[in-house]
């Protein structure tokens, strides 16, 4: 038995972390968040694409790496830990999984290689499928999509959007379709894109497998949730590291603050709550590919539990830094906000726990 990331997966994660550590300082994150340096944002994006993060989940027969979700988790942890300001969960996890599991042979042959070459980029909007706010939602009939999709992720330079109706039918729309009106939304985390789409008579290319089997949309959802959990875990890991190293340096009352039990205990509590999350996450990712009966519950609990732990970590790690933790200068808030956004995407903890109960038949 071996429980953990493989050597290869660890290596991949290290590449991502190293790339972000070498290329994305807090000042650069700030510039990207403020929209001040589009060239830099592109450079970072293509640097990570060069590592092959886009090709991970595409099967080998379509030119991809044919990796399992655990590998994508390894990458997402790395992205979270360095606040990677790029598309991932939607564009390179949910989209290829949806196309691979629900697409026709022609759709697979058309789109999957284009994900590997990154010629075609996908934004993803499943919020209404999970929980529709503001009466949003998309109506699908006669091959046309009408309605509103809120909180579309990874959509800034998207060529297509992957969307769903309330029944979990997945479909693609062309971003250039004249019936689509795109509005930017601003979240606290300005390093990632967030869109609203209004659709009027837009041609919808249905992924047929999702029509015949409603479980496919859930599977796509599970994958996205696991990836956001991984991202929050990575961000939490980073915040704890920063808090511990600050606590070892900062002095008050003639001693390093890390020598106060109050500070030690904050750090120990963060570490103790986060530590089991690694295994939980890996287990969930493993189940996704290899234990389908377990997968849904695992994915739901990983997302909701890790979201709760990450929220606590984001608060305590900030507290350890004192006034400095609250500044824009230090930039700890980019991790704080990343965790904050991940928490709500594809369902906040309460909604997901409700689903977890439902999966087990607890709500009959």
């Amino acid at each position, binding site marked *: 038995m071996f429980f953990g990331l493989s050597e290869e997966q660890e290596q991949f994660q290290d590449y991502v972390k190293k790339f972000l550590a070498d290329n994305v300082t807090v000042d650069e994150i700030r510039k990207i968040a403020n929209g001040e340096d589009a060239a830099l944002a592109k450079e970072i994006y293509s640097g990570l694409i060069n590592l092959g993060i886009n090709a991970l989940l595409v099967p080998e027969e379509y030119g991809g790496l044919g990796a399992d979700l655990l590998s994508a988790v390894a990458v997402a942890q790395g992205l979270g830990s360095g606040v990677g300001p790029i598309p991932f969960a939607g564009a390179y996890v949910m989209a290829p999984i949806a196309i691979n599991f629900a697409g026709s042979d022609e759709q697979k042959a058309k789109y999957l290689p284009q994900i590997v070459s990154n010629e075609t980029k996908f934004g993803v909007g499943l919020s209404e499928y999970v929980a529709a706010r503001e009466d949003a939602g998309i109506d699908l009939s006669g091959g046309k999509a009408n309605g509103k999709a*809120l909180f579309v992720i990874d959509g800034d330079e998207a060529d297509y959007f992957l969307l769903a109706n309330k029944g979990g039918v997945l479909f693609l729309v062309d971003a250039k379709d004249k019936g689509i009106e795109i509005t930017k939304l601003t979240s*606290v985390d300005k390093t990632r894109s967030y869109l609203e789409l209004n659709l009027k008579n837009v041609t919808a290319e249905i992924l047929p497998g999702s029509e015949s089997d409603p479980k496919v949309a859930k599977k796509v959802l599970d994958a996205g949730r696991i990836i956001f959990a991984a991202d929050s875990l990575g961000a939490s890991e980073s915040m704890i590291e920063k808090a511990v190293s600050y606590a070892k340096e900062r002095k008050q009352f003639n*001693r390093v603050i890390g020598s*106060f039990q109050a500070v030690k205990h904050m750090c120990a509590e963060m570490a103790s709550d986060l530590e089991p999350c690694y295994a939980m996450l890996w287990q969930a990712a493993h189940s996704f590919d290899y234990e389908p009966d377990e997968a849904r519950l695992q994915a739901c609990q990983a997302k909701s539990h890790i979201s709760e732990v990450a*929220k606590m970590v984001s608060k305590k790690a900030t507290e350890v830094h004192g*006034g400095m933790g609250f500044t824009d*200068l230090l930039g700890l808030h980019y991790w704080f906000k990343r965790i904050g956004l991940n*928490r709500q995407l594809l369902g906040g903890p309460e909604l997901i726990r409700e689903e977890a109960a439902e999966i087990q038949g607890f709500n009959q």
Partner: protein
Amino acid sequence: MDLNYGAEYEDFRKEVQAFCKEYQGVSFKSESNENTMSDALSGSSANKKSKKEVTRSEWQQILIEKGYIARAIPKEYGGYGGETDIIKSRIIATEFSKAKVPGGMGGQGIDMLVPTLLEWGSEEQKQKYIRPTLHGEMIWCQGYSEPNAGSDLASLQTKGELIDGNWVINGQKIWTSTAQYSQMMFCLVRTEPQAPKHSGISFILIPMDTPGIEIRPLVDMTLKAGFNEVFFDDVTVPEENIVAKRGEGWSVANSVLGHERGSLADPNATMNRLNTLISMMKEQTIDGRRLIDIPSYRDRLMQVQGKVMASQAHSLRLLSSKINPGQNVKLGGMIQKLVGTELRHELEGLAIDVLGEIGTLYEDSPYLKEDGSFQFTYMYFLGLIIGGGTNQIQKNIISERGLGMPKEPKVTEAS
């Protein structure tokens, strides 16, 4: 226990209700954004679309004339000149909150400096500073923390020397909230370098336009410049700007910190926010279902409501102890900052959670609720969990001074 208001108070309630009706929907002419903090603290945001526009200081004037704020502050200093009346305060707070009429200004001048001057100030200082401060014409900032003196405030190094009848001040402050909008600073300065660290500090009032002061705004995680660095280069102010005696600054400051810790976590503000949250949960929906109808959200709401009710009742007990000297709630006072800031942070975090993705929206995004104040205040109160003496320091105070537990052994200079 006697919470019976009696006829006299019912008349007073009617008067307050009539006032609230008259001013329902009052809004403020936009001035500088110095009010963001005081809005967050008071839990109020005045209605933007109303026709009844007043400036902040006009509103302040109206409230003082009615005795709704500055009630127990003598008339000669610009207050209402009445008696502290716990029941009236309660009625005012409740009716204002019900009618969503904004309360008076907060801020470090009104909440901290005014009580301090009443306790420690000279007659001239009271005459000179209290009135304009109460009326919102003189904004103050608090110059205590330094880069190396945060939790260990008493180790502060900004130096003051008395030269030819003037204090000459050199050094640096940091995290100074609203310094960039302030006319005055109350500042802790080391004037007695030979004395032990707590008895070498003086409390000095400094006009912010004095030559030699440089203010550098610091952006915080809310992306507003909530605080500043303030540098002093031979800043010279008259000798009489000292409050109390040389070397008494630490005692003066401690009395101000007491006021600050109370005002950071005003239970009425928290109640206002709870009411805002409840109305929002009745309006907003998921899949057509009202948020308030979703049991998991509702349970969290009820938990928070329980805490808010406890803190409201607790604040009454604290008020009561002020007018009934026999009542001892020393411990009860010490917990205010810790419990109040954590509760507010929790409440705002709940609002974000029930709104889901909508709750993550910020700045000028479409679909923003309550002007994005849930996100802003969620972060801002994390700042207040740190500011005003961190919550870890609060726990030290509660256990050592409140519960009489032994202090941590001091580490000496050498290490």
